C-alpha cells in the first residue's frame, strides 16, 4: 500500500499514456484522473516512509520535503485542470494525450525524486516529452519553437549532467540532501554550482536562457501552455532548491548574480510582454518576469545562509501562487479562443481579472502573500540592502499591473466560437469553462489554504495596514500609465509605423539567429570538404591497390568465393581439419 502511494503518482500517468489507444470512451477521464494519486499524496501525505527501490534506475530514492509537498499539490491540481480542459484534444490526435500523460509523469516525478539520478531522469523525461506538446500544431512557428526548445534543453541537460556528476562524486552518494550539503566543500565548487544554476536556469527561464520560453509556451495548445508555464517551469526551481547548498554556506557572488538576473528578467518580461499582441506570448513573458522574482528569492537564500529556510519557503510560496494564477490565465485565454458571449464573457473577464490582481500582488490575494513573504526575506539583507530590493519588488508589481491590464485589454472583446480545424480549442466552450472556473476558485481561496498544508511554515499573513498598503500602492501606480495609455492610445500610432511588436517574441534569440550563420556556414562547409576529401583519398586502400595491383585478381577470387558452394565446402573442409587436429591433440 505504501509503495503504491509512492509509485502510483508516476506509474499511473505512464500506464495511461501506454494504454491510451486501447482504452475506450472512458479515456477522456484519464487525463483528469492520472494526476489524482499525486494530489492525494501531496494533500494527505504518505501512509509510511518512502520505500527502498533498489531495482529502479540506479537505486532510486523518493521523498517529499517541506518545499516539494506544496508544489506537488499545486502541480497535480494544475495537471488535473489542464487535463480536464484538454479532454477533447486527444480525440483527433491520440499522441497528444499520451504525451500529456508522459510529461505529467515526469513533472510529478521531479517533485518526488530524492536522489540526483532519479531527479535527472525525471527532469529529462519531462523536458523531452514536452517537446511533443510544443510542436503539436505542426506550424512553422511551432517547429521553430520546438527547435529552439530542444537545442536549449539539450545544452541544459548536458550542463546539468556534468554538474550532477561532479557533485555526486564529491558527495560519494546520490541522495540529494547529502549532495547539496557536500557541495559547500567540493573542489571546483564554483564551476559545479555554475553548471547547476545554468542547467536548471534553462527551465526556469533565467535571463539570458529564457529565449525559448516566449516561443514555446504560446506555440503549444492552451492546456499544455498552462502546465508548461504553470508547473513545469517550476521543476528548474525545485532543482535549485534541492541541490544548491542553501543554508550551508554563503555564496554572495552567485546570490548577487541571481538577484541581478532575476530583476533583469522581471523588467524584461514586463517590457517585452507589454509590447505583444498575442495574449499567450504576453503570458509567457509574464512568466519570465515572475520567475525572475522567484530567482531573486533563491539568490537571497544564497546570500543569507541564516535565512535560507525562509528564502526557500518564499520561493515555494511564490511558485505555488504563480503556478495556479498563470495556469488559470492561460486556460482563460483558451476559453476566450473557444468563444465567449454575453454572461460567459463577463464571467471570463471577472475571473481573469481576479487572477491578474493576484499576479500583481493586490492585497489579500495569493500574490500578496507570496510577495510579502519574499519582501520579509529581503529585509534581512545587511547594510540597508533590503530597502532598494523591496522597492524594486514593488516596482516590479507595478509593472505586472501594466502587463495584466494589457492582457485584459487583448481579451476585452467577446469572441464568436471558432470552428477552424486547426484551432486548439474545443468547439464547445462549456467544456473548458468548468475546469477554468475551478482553477479560478483556487486562485481566490488558495492563499488561505496554504498555511493549512504546511503547518510549520513561517508566519504567512502579515495582516497589518502597512502590509495592505504595501500591496496596494504598486497596483495603483501601475494603473496610472494604463489610464494615460487608454486616453491617448499611442499603440495605434505604433501599429501604423510597424505592424510587428517592437520586441518580437524571443528577443535576444533574434540576435543569435542572425549571428549564427556566420559560424555555422563555415563550419558546415569545412565538414563537408573534409568528408569529400576523405572519401576521395581512402589512402590505405589506394596504397594496397597500387602496390599489389590486386584488382583483377581479387575480383576473380571474389567471383569464385561468392559462389557459396565453393566457400561453404571450403569451410567444411577447414572445420574437419581443425576437428581432426584437435582430436589428435587430445589423444
Amino acid at each position, binding site marked *: 500500500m505504501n509503495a503504491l502511494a509512492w509509485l502510483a503518482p508516476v506509474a499511473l500517468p505512464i500506464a495511461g499514456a501506454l494504454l491510451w489507444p486501447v482504452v475506450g470512451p472512458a479515456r477522456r477521464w484519464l487525463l483528469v484522473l492520472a494526476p489524482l494519486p499525486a494530489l492525494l499524496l501531496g494533500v494527505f501525505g504518505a501512509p509510511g516512509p518512502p520505500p527502498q*527501490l*533498489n*531495482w*529502479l*534506475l*540506479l*537505486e*532510486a530514492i523518493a521523498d517529499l520535503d517541506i518545499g516539494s509537498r506544496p508544489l506537488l499539490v499545486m502541480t497535480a491540481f494544475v495537471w488535473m485542470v489542464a487535463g480536464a480542459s484538454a479532454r477533447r484534444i486527444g480525440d483527433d490526435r491520440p499522441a497528444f494525450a499520451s504525451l500529456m500523460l508522459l510529461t505529467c509523469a515526469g513533472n510529478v516525478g521531479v517533485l518526488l525524486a530524492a536522489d540526483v*539520478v532519479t531527479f*535527472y*531522469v525525471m527532469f*529529462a*523525461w519531462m523536458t*523531452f516529452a514536452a517537446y*511533443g506538446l510544443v*510542436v503539436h500544431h*505542426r506550424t512553422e512557428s511551432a*517547429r521553430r519553437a*520546438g527547435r529552439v526548445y*530542444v537545442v536549449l534543453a*539539450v*545544452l541544459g*541537460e*548536458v*550542463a546539468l*549532467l*556534468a554538474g550532477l*556528476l*561532479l557533485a*555526486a*562524486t*564529491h558527495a560519494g552518494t546520490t541522495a540529494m540532501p547529502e549532495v547539496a550539503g557536500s557541495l559547500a566543500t567540493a573542489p*571546483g565548487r564554483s564551476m559545479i554550482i555554475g553548471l547547476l544554476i545554468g542547467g536548471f536556469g534553462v527551465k526556469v527561464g533565467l535571463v539570458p536562457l529564457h529565449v525559448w520560453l516566449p516561443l514555446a509556451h504560446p506555440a503549444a495548445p492552451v492546456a499544455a501552455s498552462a502546465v508548461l508555464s504553470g508547473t513545469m517551469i517550476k521543476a528548474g526551481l525545485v532543482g535549485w532548491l534541492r541541490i544548491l547548498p542553501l543554508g550551508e554556506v554563503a555564496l554572495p557572488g552567485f546570490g548577487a548574480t541571481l538577484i541581478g538576473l532575476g530583476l533583469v528578467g522581471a523588467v524584461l518580461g514586463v517590457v517585452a510582454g507589454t509590447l505583444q499582441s498575442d495574449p499567450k506570448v504576453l503570458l509567457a513573458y509574464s512568466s519570465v518576469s515572475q520567475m525572475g522574482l522567484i530567482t531573486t528569492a533563491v539568490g537571497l537564500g544564497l546570500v543569507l545562509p541564516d535565512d535560507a529556510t525562509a528564502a526557500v519557503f518564499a520561493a515555494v510560496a511564490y511558485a505555488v501562487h504563480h503556478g495556479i494564477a498563470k495556469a488559470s490565465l492561460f486556460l482563460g485565454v483558451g476559453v476566450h479562443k473557444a468563444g465567449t458571449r454575453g454572461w460567459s464573457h463577463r464571467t471570463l473577464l471577472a475571473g481573469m481579472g481576479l487572477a491578474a490582481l493576484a499576479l500583481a500582488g493586490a492585497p489579500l490575494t495569493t500574490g500578496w502573500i507570496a510577495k510579502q513573504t519574499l519582501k520579509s526575506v529581503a529585509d534581512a539583507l545587511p547594510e540597508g540592502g533590503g530597502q532598494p530590493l523591496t522597492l524594486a519588488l514593488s516596482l516590479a508589481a507595478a509593472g505586472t499591473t501594466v502587463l495584466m491590464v494589457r492582457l485584459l485589454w487583448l481579451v476585452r472583446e467577446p469572441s464568436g466560437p471558432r470552428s477552424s480545424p486547426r484551432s486548439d480549442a474545443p468547439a464547445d466552450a462549456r467544456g473548458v469553462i468548468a475546469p477554468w472556473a475551478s482553477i479560478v476558485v483556487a486562485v481566490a481561496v488558495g492563499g488561505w489554504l496554504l498555511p493549512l498544508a504546511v503547518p510549520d511554515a513561517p508566519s504567512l499573513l502579515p495582516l497589518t495596514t502597512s502590509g495592505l498598503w504595501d500591496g496596494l500602492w504598486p497596483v495603483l501606480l501601475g494603473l496610472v500609465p494604463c489610464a494615460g495609455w487608454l486616453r491617448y492610445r499611442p499603440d495605434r500610432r505604433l501599429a501604423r509605423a510597424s505592424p510587428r511588436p517592437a520586441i518580437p517574441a524571443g528577443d535576444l534569440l533574434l540576435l543569435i539567429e542572425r549571428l549564427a550563420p556566420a559560424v555555422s556556414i563555415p563550419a*558546415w562547409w569545412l*565538414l*563537408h570538404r573534409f*568528408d569529400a576529401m*576523405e572519401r576521395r583519398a*581512402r589512402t*590505405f*586502400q589506394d596504397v*594496397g591497390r597500387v602496390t599489389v595491383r590486386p584488382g583483377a585478381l*581479387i*575480383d576473380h577470387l*571474389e567471383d569464385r*568465393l*561468392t559462389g*557459396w*558452394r565453393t*566457400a*561453404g*565446402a571450403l*569451410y*567444411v573442409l577447414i*572445420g574437419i581439419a581443425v576437428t581432426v*587436429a*584437435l582430436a589428435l*591433440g*587430445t589423444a
Partner: protein
Amino acid sequence: MTIGAALPVLLLATSLVPAIATFFIPERSHRLRTALNVIAAVVKVVLVGALVAGVLYFGLEFEWRAAFLPGIDLVLRADPIPLLFVFLSALLWLTTTVYAVGYLADDGHRSRFFGFFGLCVTATVGVALAGNLVTFLVFYELLTVTTYPLVVHDGTAKARAGGRAYLLYTLTGGALLLLGTVWLHALAGPLEFGQTEVVGALAVNHRTTLTIVFVILIVALGFKAALVPLHGWLPQAMVAPAPVSALLHAVAVVKAGAYGIVRVVHDLFGLPLAQDLGVLMPLTIVAAITIVYGSTRALIQDDLKRRLAYSTVSQLSYIVLGISVVSLSSTTGGLVHLVHQGIMKVTLFYCAGNLGKRGVHRVSEMDGIGRRMPVTMLAFTVAAVGMVGIPPTAGFVTKWYLGLGAAEAGQPWIIGVLALSSALNAAYFLPPVARAWLPPDPGERSEPTGRALAGEPGGWLLLPPVATAVSVLGLGILAGAPLSPLTWAAFIAEELMPS
C-alpha cells in the same frame, strides 16, 4: 567429457552445426532453413541461460581445453567478462536471425547467407569464450573471414569495394595481432587470460618491450574496434544488408575488437601493470578523440546507415574510454556499454533496414515517415534517444557511470568530452527523429514513390526492433535490478579493481 567442459563446446556447436547444415539446404526450402536457424538460436539462448545460472548460482566452472600448439591449448572458459559478451551475442543472434528471415524473404542466396551467418556467430562465441590469447586469435581471424561473404552479399560493385576495404583493414589488424601474440608468448611462455601476475613479473626486466607489445595488440584490435584513424572500413562496410550491419555493429566484428581491448587490458596485462607502464592515458586520449571525431563526422552524413556507422565509431570508444580510466565506475560503465551499445545499435540498424525496405535510405527522405511506419519509428526513437544518453534509457546508465568514473579518477576533462559528445549525438540523432514525426515541410516535399507509400513491413521485421527497443528502456529503468547487465558489470569491475 564433463558438463563443465561440454557446455562451452555445445555453445559453439549450436551455431556451427546448423550453419554447416544450412549450406546444404536447397534454396527453396524456406521453412526448413528458418526453423533450423531459429531453433538453434533459441537453444543457444537457453544454453547461455544455463551457463549464467551455473556460474552465478552454483559456482560451477565451465572450461574446455584441447592441445593446439606445443604447450598452448585451445581454451574456452566462462569467466564473468566472457559471460557478459556471450549473453549479448546469443540474445542478439536470436533477434537478428528472426530479422534476417524477414529481411531476406525475396533474396536468392539465403542458404549461403544463413550459413555464413551461423559461422560468424560461432566465431563470435569463440572470441567471447576464448581462455587465452591464442584461442582468441584463432576465432578472431575466423570472424574476419566468415563475415566477408556477408558484407559482399549483394554482389554489387559497391558491396565489393566495401568488402575489399573491410578485408584490407581487418587482415592488417589480424597480422598485427599475430605479431603481438607471438611476441608476448616468446616473452612470457604459455599464457592464459587472467594470469596477469605472469606478465606483471616480466615488467621488471622488459618494460619497453611490454609497452611495445601492448601498443601492437591495441593497434591490432583497434582496426576492428574502429579507433581513429583505423576506422576507415566501417562506414564503407555499411553497404552490407541490414541484418549484417546490425550484427557487425552490435556484437560481431567491432565488438570483438572492443572486447579484445577489454581482455588485453584487464585479463592479460592487468590494470596495475598497464597503469604502471603509462599506456592507459594515451589510450584514453585516443578514445576521446575517436568519440568526438566519430560524432562530428556523423553530423553531416545524409545516408542513414553511414550516419549510424560513424555513430558506432564514436560509441565503441565509450567502451575503450571506460576501460582505460582507472576507477570502479569507469570500468563498470565501459563493461556495461558492451551490452548497451549492442542493443541500441542493433535496434537502429533494424529500423534503418525497415526504412530501406520502403525506399528510405537518407535522412532527408525521412520526413513524415513516422505516420506510415509508427512502430519502426517508435523503436528508432527509443534507440536514438538511448544513444544520446537521455534517460531513462540504457545509454544514460552508461554515460552516468563513465562520467562518475572520470570524476572519481580525477579526470574531469572526460566529463567535458562526454558532454560534447552528448550534444553532438543529439545534433545528429534528434533531427531524423523530429523529421520522422513531423509532417514534411510543404516547401521541400518530394513526391513519394509507389514503394514508399506502403506502411510497416511484416512481423518478422517488426518484432526484433520492438523487442530490442523495449530492452533499451528496460535496461535503463531496471538498471539496479539483480541480474541486470549493470549489476553484473559492477560485480566484475569490483573484482578487477586493484585493491
